[in-house]
C-alpha cells in the first residue's frame, strides 16, 4: 500500500509540474484580460529551447543544467509570447485567432530549427542531464509522510507549488496584482486611475510566456528527454483547462493541475491498481478529459472569467 501511494504521488507530481507552471502563466495573462489559447505553442518553444540548451551545455554546467535550461525555456517563452502581446494589445487581433497562430507556428518553427541544428533530423538527441529524483534533506526522514511526499520525488513540482503560492500573493496582495486584475475587469476605469493599461497587459502576457516556457522546459527534461513534434501533445490545452477549472486563481489552478496530473498518471499506473488491472486502458486514457467536462458542468459557474477578457482595449474610446 505504501509502495503504491509512493508511486501515485511521485508520478502525479512529475506529470503536474509542467501543467502547474503553464496554468499559472495563463492565469496572469487572462487576469490582464488577454485570452491565451497559445499556451500550447509557448510550451513547445520552451521545451525546444530548453532541450537544445541542455544538450549543448550539459558538459559545462553539469547537474545544474536542467535548472538553467528552465530559465532559457522561460526566456524563449517571453520572446514568443511577444507576438501574441503585439497582435492582441496593439494590433487589435482576435485573441483566439492570435493564440491559434502561436499554436500553428510553434511546432513548425521548432521542428524546422531542430532540422537545422541536428542534420535534418526531426528530433533532438537524448539529454543526459535531466531532472532526476529528489529527496528533501531533513523532511525525508519523517516516518510515512516523508516516504510518500519527500523521498525520491520531483523537485520541479515543488518549485511549481512554491510559484503558485507566490503567484497568489502577487495577484491578490500586491499593488501590481491589483492593477493587473483591474485592467482585466475594467480597463476604462483603470485607465482613468492612471494605470497604464497596455503595460499591464504586456506584463500579463509576458509572464504567461515565461511560465509557459518553463512548463515546456520542465516537461522535456523530466518526461520525454528529447524534443520532437510529439513532445508537447495537448498539455498546453490541459493547462488552459486547469486555469479555467481553477477559476483564474493561482491556488485553484494549482489544485486543478494536480488533479490533471493525477488523472494523466492514472493512464500509466492505472493498470497496477489492484482489482482494476483488467479494465481496458482506453478508460484510463479518456478519464481525465471526460472528468474535466463533468467537473466543468457540475462546479463551474458561467461568469467567473475576468469581465473584460478577450476584448482589445482601445484608449480613445
Amino acid at each position, binding site marked *: 500500500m505504501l509502495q503504491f501511494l509512493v508511486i501515485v504521488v511521485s508520478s502525479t507530481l512529475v506529470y503536474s509540474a509542467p501543467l502547474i507552471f503553464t496554468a499559472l502563466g495563463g492565469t496572469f495573462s487572462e487576469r490582464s484580460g488577454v485570452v491565451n*489559447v497559445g499556451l500550447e505553442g509557448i510550451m513547445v518553444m520552451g521545451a525546444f529551447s530548453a532541450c537544445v540548451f541542455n544538450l549543448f551545455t550539459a558538459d559545462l554546467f553539469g547537474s545544474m543544467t536542467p535548472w538553467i535550461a528552465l530559465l532559457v525555456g522561460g526566456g524563449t517563452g517571453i520572446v514568443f509570447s511577444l*507576438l501574441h502581446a503585439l*497582435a492582441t494589445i496593439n*494590433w*487589435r*487581433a*482576435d485573441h*483566439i*485567432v*492570435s493564440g*491559434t*497562430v502561436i*499554436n*500553428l*507556428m510553434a*511546432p*513548425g*518553427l521548432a*521542428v*524546422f530549427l531542430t*532540422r*537545422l541544428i541536428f542534420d*535534418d533530423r526531426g528530433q533532438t538527441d537524448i539529454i543526459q542531464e535531466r531532472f532526476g529524483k529528489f529527496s528533501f534533506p531533513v523532511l525525508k526522514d519523517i516516518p510515512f509522510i516523508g516516504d510518500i511526499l519527500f523521498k525520491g520525488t520531483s523537485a520541479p513540482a515543488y518549485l511549481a507549488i512554491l510559484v503558485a503560492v507566490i503567484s497568489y500573493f502577487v495577484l491578490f496582495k500586491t499593488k501590481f496584482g491589483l492593477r493587473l486584475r483591474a485592467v482585466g475587469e475594467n480597463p476604462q476605469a483603470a485607465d482613468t486611475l492612471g494605470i497604464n493599461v497596455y503595460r499591464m497587459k504586456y506584463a500579463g502576457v509576458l509572464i504567461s510566456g515565461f511560465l509557459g516556457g518553463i512548463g515546456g522546459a520542465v516537461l522535456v527534461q523530466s518526461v520525454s528527454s528529447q524534443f520532437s513534434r*510529439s513532445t508537447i*501533445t*495537448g498539455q498546453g*490545452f490541459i493547462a*488552459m*483547462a486547469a486555469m*479555467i477549472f481553477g477559476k483564474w486563481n493561482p491556488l485553484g489552478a494549482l489544485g486543478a493541475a494536480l488533479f490533471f496530473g493525477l488523472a494523466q498518471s492514472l493512464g500509466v499506473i492505472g493498470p497496477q491498481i489492484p482489482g482494476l488491472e483488467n479494465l*481496458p*486502458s*482506453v478508460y484510463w*486514457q*479518456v478519464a*481525465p*478529459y*471526460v472528468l*474535466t*467536462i463533468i467537473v*466543468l*458542468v457540475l462546479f*463551474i*459557474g*458561467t461568469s467567473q472569467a475576468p469581465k473584460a477578457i478577450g476584448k482589445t482595449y482601445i484608449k480613445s474610446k
Partner: protein
Amino acid sequence: MSKSRLNGFAVPVISVIFGLVLGAIVMLVSGYNPVEGYSAMLNGALGRSYNVGEVFRLASPLILTALGFSVAYTAGFFNIGLAGQALCGWLVSVSLAQSFPDMPRILLVTLCLVGGAVAGGLYAGIAGFLRAKFGTSEVIVTIMLNYTILYISNHMVRYVLTDNADATPIISENASLRVPFLQQLTGGSRLNAGIFIAIAAIIVIWILMKKTTAGFELRSVGINPFASQYAGMNANKNIVLAMVIAGALAGLGGVIEGLGTFQNIYVMAAVPEIGFDGMAVSLLGSGHPIGIFISAILFGILKVGGLSMPGAGIPKEVVEIVIASIIFFVGASYVISYLLGRFGKNAQKGEIK
C-alpha cells in the same frame, strides 16, 4: 465594388504575400535559397497532373472543416473541436463500410456519408448542448472531446475493428469515394468524389446562411444573443443547431479522408490535421464560402508543394511557418486595413457574407 468588399479581398491577399515574404526571409536567414525553395514548392504542387490532383484532394476535406468552423463562428462559437468531430465521422464511416462490405454501392456510400455526418454532428452537439444548458465553455469542452475521441478511436481500431493491428484493412470497393475518371484525369492521384461533396457543401451552406430563416437566426445570435432572444428567437436552440451543423460538416470532412484518401482508419498519435488546418482556412477565407474554397486550394498548394521542398534540401516545415504567418497577418488585419487607409472599422469578422 464597395470599399469594404475591396478590403475583404485585399487583406487576405496582402497577408499571403507577407507570409510568403516572411517564409523567404526565414529561408534566407537559415542559409537556404528561397527561390529554389518556392520553385520546388510550386513545381511539387502544380508540376504534374498527379500533384494537381493531390492539391484538390487535400483541399476537399479542408473546405468542409472550414465551413464547419465558420458556421459555428458566425453563431458566436469557437469550435476548436473540428479535428475530433472529423475523426468521429472518419471512424463511423469506416466502421460502417467494414460492417456492410457487400451492400450495393449507392446505398453503402450514402449510409457511410450520412453516418459520418450524423456522428460528427452529434459529437459537436455535446458541446453545444452543454453550452446552452449549463453555460460551459465550448472551447474547453471541444478540446477535451478531441482527446476523448482520439483514444476511443485508437482503441476501436486496435481491439474492435481489427485484432490488435495498427490499421484496418482497405474498405470494399462499394464504399470507396474514389472514382476512376478523376484518377485517370490526374495521373493516378488520390483525388476522389470528396471534391464534389465539398463543392456541394459550399453551395448548400451559402444558401442556408444567406437565404433561409435558420441562417438569419444563426447570424443574429452570433451578433447579439440577447437581442435575438428578445426578438423571439430561441438562443439555446440556435446554439445547439450551429454546433450540430458545424460538426456534421467536419464529420463529412473525416468521411472523405476515410473513404476517399486513406480508405481505412489507423491508430493516430494526434487528432487529424484537417481540424486545425480547417480553422486556418476559414480565417484566411474570412468565413466566406468562395474565400474558403480559394484558401483551401492555397493550403493544398502549400502543403502538397511543401512535400517537395526537402528535394531542394529545405525542411518542409517552412510551409507551416508560412501558413501560420499568413493567419497572423489576417488576424492582425487591423494593421493592414489601417495601412490601407481605413480607420477603425473591423473588416474581418469571419461572417458568411
